[in-house]
């Protein structure tokens, strides 16, 4: 009896334990336990990593592939530098001090004691550039069976670059991103575009960022005792003084795709709590006054995502605001850690601090949680993030002043994306669907960030805010803590749009994505003319050659003249979108016409006693993708008030310029 009671007790205890333990958010495939020491004299990281990698596929995996990002800065011939060129700022430092950086794995064994290091070698899956050592292949003597795990351990040393792109040191500021040997993503058959299982582990290119596998991290960082550490994750224990003028800081975080940290003796720490989420801000003393701006904008972004998607799922979020000499590490996203930028040189009306904070925070959802591949489909995180950055900033600061509101100069966030996209020398230079490193002529940033945000905004307005919101929420919940591709995104949008608008978009939105995502079409519709001509009564010779009907202006029964009015609409670009055209008559009557927008020209004609006053394409401003908004409307009579105002201002500043130069006399 006692034995049975004991078993019953044990059963309930276990069940209780199970239910109180939180289920993992992700598949937790790549799990790291890292002990790293920061050597500030040699500018090196000396580390030991224990990695448990779980085979997520039905394949037998015979090798592992690692990113060694620091090797991108190892010599002038790496793929990174071949694509980017040596930035002039770094040339002196590299030339004089031989400040090249690198990462080297010194040994590697599996849990059976097999030496894995003997056969490891660098590979170049993207460009066959033998000088590039950013991807390491490790053949396994004992392959990893389906759904089994492998546990490996290795010592490694990393030479820290002088602040290079996103990472490195300058003076006594250290920011460690892409700092450790990081296993690639094994894509089983059917995942994204994989027809058979294989590693997705690209070299480090100058454009594009990262693609990471979900997992857990436990990291111990030993730094000089006067340094403070800011990191991904939370601290299970307070920092431990080792008695040798060093302190070890421990951080842990689960279900993330990466881990980053920074250290400095000058960090000033500020904290706040938002609905149980611990927010930690590390700034330099001269930037402490920015605290209010961070702690004001971040909760609003958290609130937005809680309302529109779900509550931020991690217990902490750290913001590192780099000092001026750490500028090149700023404005970047890592799981539960973001870096932003601020400067005492910028006035409050220039909202770069808020924009970057919101942007990098949005990335917590779109790439850190919905784990897209930024090397291959950067628009899926940068584009979507830029779009939501615009939504949040415009909502808080107004759509005409959310980026700049300073000395009468104003610019909104979403409108800045549109301007940036169309101000490119060639907005049709590349589709969004290229790999990050394949964008020609430095077009990566504008196409992936700005163009994507503009077409997402257009999509939202075409399908309606409610449907768009539902589609994005469905996409998020279906793909969080997984790795979707563009086709997965398109499928979700098609599904929700077709469900909500079976009449209008029953076949989905592929016609739209073909043009904006996979194509380079440019949208430009214009009202080319309006005419209001008197209707003429029938005139001429009909049955009797002797009788000629004279021409007269036609009138109605109230003796009012009748007009034949026409509006001519043209498609000037090669993108076709359904268009609405609002035609307003002089008596205030309005007609909303719909046009499929496919032909190069169409005409709308009316017979009325009133003349057309004006006509406007897209009167409700649903198509920010339209390149020229000035030709979207036409008034039958010119309205020159605005012209007069600008000419007046032009005249005034012209006179001042002439007098100003006259000061030299």
């Amino acid at each position, binding site marked *: 009896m006692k034995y049975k009671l004991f078993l019953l007790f044990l059963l309930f205890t276990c069940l209780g334990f199970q239910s109180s333990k939180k289920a993992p958010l992700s598949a937790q495939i790549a799990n790291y336990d890292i002990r790293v020491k920061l050597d500030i004299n040699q500018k090196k990281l000396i580390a030991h990593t224990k990695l448990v990698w779980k085979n997520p596929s039905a394949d037998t995996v015979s090798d592992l592939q690692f990113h060694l990002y620091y090797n991108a800065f190892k010599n002038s011939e790496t793929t990174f530098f071949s694509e980017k060129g040596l930035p002039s*700022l770094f040339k002196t430092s590299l030339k004089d001090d031989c400040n090249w950086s690198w990462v080297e794995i010194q040994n590697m064994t599996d849990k059976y004691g097999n030496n894995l290091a003997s056969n490891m070698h660098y590979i170049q899956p993207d460009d066959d550039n033998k000088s590039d050592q950013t991807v390491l292949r490790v053949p396994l003597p004992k392959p990893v069976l389906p759904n089994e795990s492998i546990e490996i351990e290795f010592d490694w040393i990393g030479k820290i670059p*002088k*602040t290079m792109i996103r990472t490195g040191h*300058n*003076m006594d500021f250290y920011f460690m991103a892409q700092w450790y040997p990081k296993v690639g993503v094994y894509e089983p058959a059917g995942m994204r575009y994989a027809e058979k299982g294989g590693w997705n582990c690209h070299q480090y290119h100058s454009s594009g960022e990262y693609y990471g596998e979900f997992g857990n991290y436990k990291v111990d960082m030993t730094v000089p005792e006067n340094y403070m550490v800011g990191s991904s994750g939370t601290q299970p224990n307070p920092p431990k003084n080792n008695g040798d003028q060093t302190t070890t800081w421990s951080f842990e975080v689960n279900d993330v795709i990466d881990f980053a940290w920074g250290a400095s003796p000058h960090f000033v720490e500020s904290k706040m709590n938002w609905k149980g989420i611990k927010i930690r801000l590390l700034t*330099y003393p*001269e930037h402490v006054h920015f605290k209010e701006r961070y702690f004001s904008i971040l909760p609003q972004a958290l609130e937005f995502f809680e309302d529109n998607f779900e509550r931020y799922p991690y217990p902490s979020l750290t913001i590192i605001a780099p*000092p*001026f*000499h*750490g*500028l090149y590490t700023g404005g970047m996203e890592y799981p539960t850690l973001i870096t932003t930028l601020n*400067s*005492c*040189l910028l006035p409050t009306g220039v909202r770069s601090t808020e924009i970057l904070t919101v942007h990098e925070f949005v990335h917590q959802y779109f790439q850190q949680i919905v784990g897209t591949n930024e090397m291959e489909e950067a628009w899926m995180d940068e584009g979507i993030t830029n779009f939501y950055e615009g939504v949040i900033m415009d909502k808080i600061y107004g759509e*005409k002043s959310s980026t700049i509101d300073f000395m*009468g*100069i*104003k610019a909104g966030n979403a*409108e*800045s994306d*549109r*301007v940036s996209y*169309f*101000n490119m020398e060639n907005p049709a230079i590349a589709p969004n669907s290229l790999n990050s490193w394949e964008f020609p002529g430095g077009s990566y940033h504008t196409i992936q960030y700005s163009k994507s945000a503009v077409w997402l905004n257009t999509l939202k307005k075409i399908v309606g805010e409610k449907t768009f919101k539902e589609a994005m929420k469905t996409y998020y919940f279906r793909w969080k803590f997984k790795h979707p591709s563009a086709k997965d995104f398109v499928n979700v949008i098609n599904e929700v749009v077709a469900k909500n608008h079976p009449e209008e978009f029953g076949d989905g939105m592929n016609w739209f994505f073909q043009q904006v995502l996979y194509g380079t079409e440019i949208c430009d519709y214009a009202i080319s003319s309006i005419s209001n001509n008197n209707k003429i009564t029938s005139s001429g010779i009909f049955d009797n050659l002797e009788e000629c009907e004279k021409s007269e202006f036609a009138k109605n029964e109230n003796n009012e003249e009748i007009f034949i009015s026409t509006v001519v609409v043209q498609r000037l670009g090669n993108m076709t979108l359904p268009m609405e055209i609002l035609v307003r008559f002089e008596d205030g009557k309005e007609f909303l016409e719909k046009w499929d927008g496919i032909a190069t020209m169409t005409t709308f004609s009316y017979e009325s006693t009133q003349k057309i006053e*004006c006509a406007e394409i897209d009167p409700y401003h649903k198509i920010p993708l339209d390149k*020229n*908004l*000035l*030709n*979207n*409307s*036409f*008034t*039958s009579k*010119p*309205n*020159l*008030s*605005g*012209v*007069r*105002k*600008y*000419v*007046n*201002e*032009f*005249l*005034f500043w*012209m*006179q*001042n*310029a*002439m*007098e100003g*130069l*006259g000061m*030299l*006399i």
Partner: protein
Amino acid sequence: MWVLLYLLNFAFALLSAVPFSGFLSKSIGHSLANLNMLNSFDYTFISDLVREYESGLSVIMNLSVGIILLFFIFSIFWMGGILSILKNKENNYSFRQFWQGSTVYFWKLTRLTFYFSCFQIIIFGFFAFLFLRQGISPFEIKSEISIIKSIAILLPIYISFAIIIFMIQDYAKIHIVHDNRKLIFQSIKNAFQFVLKNFGKCFGLYLFNLVTFAAFFGIYWSLSNSFKSDSSPTIALLFIIGQSFIFSRIAVKILNLGSAMELYHTES
């Protein structure tokens, strides 16, 4: 003379404002976007206008630069006339005297303008060198505070130097017209000595005139920002306020030269 100078300024500005007006009327005169121009600064509108009509606008801009340079040359020309009138202020204004002064002193004033422009460039270059010497790159300095500090220190010193050079130039012009020496370096030397000898008075007078100019600008700024110019009457009102400021600016320029001429008469 003030009215004449104002009308010349206005006429020159019209040479580019009229084509600008015609260009805008033709390109966007029938667009409803015109109404956006009545509101405050509209980034989308400005960007679309500049991008879509870039070729036409660049012609207007090039024309405007040409007109500004032409006006600059003419300003040198009639500076001699202005100073001649001020020198003989007891006589009534005579167009003949103005014309004569303009032609007689043109080349000397042109050379003087060239030399003093060089001085100003050297002074600016020197202070720019001092500013850049400490570095502005994130790899060279610890914090942007040092940039702010050096701006806070160097900028007032630079402005003071530039003002002194402008002031000496004014007295050199006066000396040229007053004494009409053959070599203008004598006039520069004389002006320098004069300013050095009467620095308090010269600098005080110059500052007073600068403050007067700043006060006019302040009045213009507060008036023009006190209402929204979104209708024909308010646009007309803005035009009147703007033109009043230009007129006052020209008046201050004459006042500055006239008062300096008076001081020169008194002290030399």
